[in-house]
């Protein structure tokens, strides 16, 4: 997977003259840009902003739960906080962050000059800010923001005020953006690879995104259908989910989770991809089991379509249904395990160093796997019936989404920042960010396992006294975790503004194509395609 040297040479002089020649400057550069790197940056900054807005809401939740009693919010507003926190983090922070990575990295990693549909790329991004504004502005309409949980179960969601409609429109727009982004990614990967780069020579990050993009195209329309039916139930007299009119409230859950379970893999597969780039680079050793990684990712994606009702074990489905969904869900643990084993085998007998990207990747392995184990516990139907809709599930999905997806996003950011900015980030800031995040993450979320087992339901603004101690610990951890993220912003700003010049390939063991380009990467990546041996 090495680029022929003449490609590098071609770059050296191609960029001298036309690097900044073809685009407007100032604000209009960003509004009109069709450049994959600019758009990637926009996605990442958007995601960072939403991450902080979502974090603020989370802090509102944890403040209320610091002690028993209603301290700050009315219960209704508390429900708005949990709902909006979930929606913003899923649709505003995690998903766009990965699309940002895809935009920056996929063309560079497959030796392409840009994304396949450059104008559509601009449109995919610029749909997001209006959607986010719609979503956040729902706080200010009568009745407030959606308050039915991020899962917007009917018929509760048909009861809400106009904030729910704003939320639905926002999701529609974000869904359209995701679909366009995915079409672009699929087309780019399938058509624009450098000569010689067969599918089985693609870097794993590209593979995971190819599969993720297919998942997105398959399930975003399903979500759109579900929320449209809610919309017509709310305003146009239909009764899709209204039992009194002959509708079926459980059907909403089936449709939602048919989207929702693949969605959780949409949020983790690109993370697997990032970690699969980072670990070999810092172990100075090729990825172990490349082919089995590709097969494992594909089988996870396929299985993700037949496990959705594991979110619905308590709705009272027949025993045959419970058994089927339990077995199918347990099966997912096999390819997930294979991935973890492969990563550890990659580290085995390597020559490892632990710069920040590698720290986050190791943190990911450790802590994400705990989320995998609790996932397995949730998959066992009888146990799940006890812990469904409790804090145990809250712990489970934060272990996979924060310590999984988010840590991978951090890892990837530090890994590629030198390529993006041309400067090395501050290792001191990065390491402090890692250790504080790791510690406070566990202080926040580990006690939630105990809370859930002991019987604390999720989505409640006040709780019985036996839950007080662990809630207090979790709230303190949350404050610490939130503040630690300021270090991340500091590290990024510092790196963007200056610092030690980054060489083309700052990481000794990195071997993908982007490292053959100078740092910062030139505006147009590969005008002459490199040739892969």
């Amino acid at each position, binding site marked *: 997977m090495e680029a022929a040297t003449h490609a590098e040479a071609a770059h050296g002089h191609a960029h001298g003259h036309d690097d900044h020649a073809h685009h407007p400057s100032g604000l209009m550069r960003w509004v009109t840009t069709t450049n994959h790197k600019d758009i990637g940056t926009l996605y990442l900054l958007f995601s960072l902003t939403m991450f902080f807005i979502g974090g603020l809401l989370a802090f509102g939740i944890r403040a209320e739960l610091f002690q028993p009693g209603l301290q700050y919010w009315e219960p209704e507003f508390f429900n708005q906080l949990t709902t909006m926190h979930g929606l913003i983090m899923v649709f505003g922070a995690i998903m766009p962050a990965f699309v940002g990575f895809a935009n920056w990295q996929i063309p560079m990693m497959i030796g392409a000059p840009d994304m396949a549909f450059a104008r559509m790329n601009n449109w995919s991004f610029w749909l997001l800010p209006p959607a986010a504004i719609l979503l956040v502005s729902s706080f200010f309409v009568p009745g407030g923001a959606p308050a039915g949980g991020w899962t917007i179960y009917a018929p509760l969601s048909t009861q809400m005020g106009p904030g729910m409609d704003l939320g639905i429109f926002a999701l529609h727009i974000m869904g359209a953006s995701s679909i366009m982004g995915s079409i672009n990614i699929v087309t780019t990967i399938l058509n624009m690879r450098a000569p010689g780069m067969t599918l089985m020579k693609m870097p794993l990050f590209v593979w995971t995104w190819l599969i993720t993009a297919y998942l997105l195209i398959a399930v975003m329309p399903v979500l759109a259908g579900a929320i449209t039916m809610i919309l017509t139930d709310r305003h146009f007299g239909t009764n899709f989910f209204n039992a009194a009119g002959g509708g079926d409230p459980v059907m909403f859950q089936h449709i939602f989770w048919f989207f929702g379970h693949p969605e959780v893999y949409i949020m983790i597969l690109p993370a697997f991809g990032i970690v699969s780039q980072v670990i070999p680079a810092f172990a100075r050793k090729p990825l172990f089991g490349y082919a089995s990684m590709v097969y494992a990712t594909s089988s996870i994606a396929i299985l993700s379509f037949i496990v959705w009702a594991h979110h619905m074990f308590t709705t009272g489905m027949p025993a045959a249904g419970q058994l089927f969904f339990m077995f199918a869900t347990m099966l997912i*643990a096999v390819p997930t395990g294979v991935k973890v084993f492969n990563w550890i085998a990659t580290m085995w007998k390597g020559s490892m160093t632990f710069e920040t990207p590698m720290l986050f990747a190791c943190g990911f392995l450790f802590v994400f796997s705990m989320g995998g184990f609790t996932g397995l516990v949730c998959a066992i139907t009888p146990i799940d019936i006890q812990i469904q809709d409790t804090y145990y599930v809250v712990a489970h999905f934060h272990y996979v989404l924060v310590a999984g997806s988010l840590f991978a996003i951090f890892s990837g950011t530090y890994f590629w920042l030198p390529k993006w900015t041309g400067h090395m980030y501050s290792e001191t800031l990065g390491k402090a960010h890692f250790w504080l995040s790791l510690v406070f993450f566990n202080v926040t979320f580990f006690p939630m396992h105990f809370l859930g087992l002991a019987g604390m339901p999720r989505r409640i603004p006040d709780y019985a006294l036996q839950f007080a101690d662990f809630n207090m610990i979790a709230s303190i951890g949350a404050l610490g975790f939130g503040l630690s993220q300021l270090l991340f912003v500091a590290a990024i700003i510092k790196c963007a503004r200056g610092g030690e010049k980054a060489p083309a390939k700052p990481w000794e063991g990195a071997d993908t194509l982007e490292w053959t380009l100078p740092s910062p990467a030139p505006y147009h990546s590969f005008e002459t395609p490199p040739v892969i041996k």
Partner: protein
Amino acid sequence: MISKWARYFLAALIPALTPAVAGAEGYNLQAPQTIIAHEIYDLHTLIFLICCAIFVAVFGTMTYSIIKHRKSVGHKAEQFHENTLVEIIWTIVPFIILIGMAIPATKTILAMKDTSNPDLTIKATGYQWKWGYDYLHEGVSFYSSLATPRDLVEDKTPDGARKRAEHANYLLEVDHPVVVPIGKKIRMIVTANDVIHAWWVPAFGVKQDAIPGFVRDTWFRVDKPGTYRGQCAELCGKEHGFMPIVVEALEPEKFALWLAEQKKLTAANAMASGSLDGKGVYDKICVACHAAGVAGAPKFGDKAAWAPRLKQGQEVLYTHALHGFKAMPLKGGATDLPDEQIKAAVDYLSAAGK
């Protein structure tokens, strides 16, 4: 069977493990009080321990590698990148472990689903935001709401915090608990009136979503007299955190006394509130559709329309009227009426259709 496996594991591992496993209050599932809850508890212990063992093995390896295979200690990277045998082994072995977990889990699922031959059937209905209980064959019905005073919940003074801390069963107490006899199989029929709720008592291992328009069932048999507390487990709107469930389990004799008392109360209430008879209910509620035959409803007194329906038998008609059928909403929409009165209205309608 399951518990044998779990005990086997426990015997080997417990001395080495922390209170988290031993079941110290607040760290683990609540002390189980039914067979099902016991099985769930043991199943969780078993799977937890297996996961711990895998975790130690896998991350022990990783930690070893992190310590030994680093550049700073001069380790040189080897360049191997596949090993078919190893890869097959670590696909097959987890698969076998999973089968080991699935077998006991399957048995518990089948046991949980067996609601046949109950000794007592109670219907729980979720409302925003309280529970309604109907003892179906005893004719006893009541609502059960949070008993913790709202002022105490909202008291923001330091004094409030102290008072809450001293308030036993804060947020887990109700005005009218469900009362059940010990040692008897209780079948819970669970439904809802408005949005989805969930009826959950952790110590019984019972959690069942309460879904409007749907009737689901579950069961438990508790052997120790006592008070068992749970909460609504499905987000149901703003007071979701404030609709607890309290079950009081009594010896059968005490239960019989309680039941007699309740029957008297229910009868007295019905007299006092001028309970409607069949015609009264029809004139107030059913008339909306059954007079003109709205949405396919059989018209009052229309013998042709009623004949095939009457043939199904009175019980079926009751069920349809109580739980809804096609366009017929449950209880004709008058969900606050006791079942007995709806049945009376069905009798009245069917007499006219004969």
